[in-house]
């Protein structure tokens, strides 16, 4: 069954559970999403559901996007995302809401992490840098050795080092759903979620429960 939604990260706060303990939560405004396409093994070779989210003016979309949605009488939507589902049990045009989830469920939240720009090895991979004392100069955040010596005489591909950090697709796995507000289309998960506020996130049933 389809258990996924597209949403927008609203921000973090804390709420109190039934024991009165404060729980850190990220609030996500998820859905209502439209089923814009159902992919089947017969036609596309795999089984998935394409969901659409965030209604916009028609002029914001290209003709192709508009046509794709118009075919099934769906309003213009800014974002389309696919969720792999074995047995969808939904059809094109259906609306899905946060009531797919209930408090206590485990979910994965997929988002795009905040971009950090070009960063050194210390921030990017937690290199320890060099010593601060014993006569060292300019070595506090140096990466050290990247590879071996004359053999192999080069740096292996994929060696960790300075480079662009962030702005990656990141999945936060196994977050507990602590709050579902169907009226306001809100879902609250325990802990942090990748990305900035107002960033697009996908919420799906946890893969590794």
């Amino acid at each position: 069954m389809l258990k996924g939604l597209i949403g927008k990260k609203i921000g973090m706060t804390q709420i109190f559970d039934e024991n009165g303990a404060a729980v850190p939560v990220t609030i996500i405004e998820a859905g209502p999403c439209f089923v814009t396409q159902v992919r089947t093994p017969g036609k596309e070779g795999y089984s998935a559901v394409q969901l659409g989210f965030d209604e916009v003016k028609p002029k914001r979309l290209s003709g192709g996007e508009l046509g794709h949605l118009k075919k099934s009488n769906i309003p213009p939507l800014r974002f389309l995302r696919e969720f792999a589902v074995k047995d969808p049990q939904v059809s094109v045009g259906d609306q899905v809401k946060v009531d797919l989830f209930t408090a206590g469920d485990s979910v994965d939240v997929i988002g795009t992490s905040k971009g950090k720009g070009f960063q050194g090895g210390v921030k990017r991979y937690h290199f320890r840098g060099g010593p601060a004392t014993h006569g060292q100069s300019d070595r506090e955040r140096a990466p050290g050795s990247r590879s071996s010596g004359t053999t192999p005489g080069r740096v292996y591909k994929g060696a960790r080092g300075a480079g662009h950090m962030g702005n990656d697709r990141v999945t936060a796995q196994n977050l507990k759903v602590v709050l579902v507000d169907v009226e306001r289309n809100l879902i609250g998960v325990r802990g942090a979620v990748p990305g900035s506020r107002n960033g697009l996130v996908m919420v799906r049933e946890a893969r590794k429960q």
Partner: protein
Amino acid sequence: MSDLLKAVEAPVNPNIPELRAGDTVSVHVKIKEGNRERIQEFKGTVLYVKNNGTNSSFTVRRMASNGVGVERSFLLRSPRIDKVVVERHNIVRRARLFFLRGRTGKSARLKQKFS
């Protein structure tokens, strides 16, 4: 802040009056023992109040036996707080009364404020 965040945050507890540093207060805390719930009082001086929306808190200091000071922080909107009774307001000239930590007995007294 987003209104959507405010919508899910805990509401303000109507049984907690406005607190200020230096107030002598008695905090009634709900305590669960097994499946029985009782109320415990924690009486002392408010050291400081942190106003930060749903994360607002205040810290109360009291003298336990043997002159040992005990400080306890409470989240202002915590459902564990039944109520707070302000017993007297005191004259203080700062927002955070950390100087009380080094004092005991007579020097730890505060003058009452009548208004």
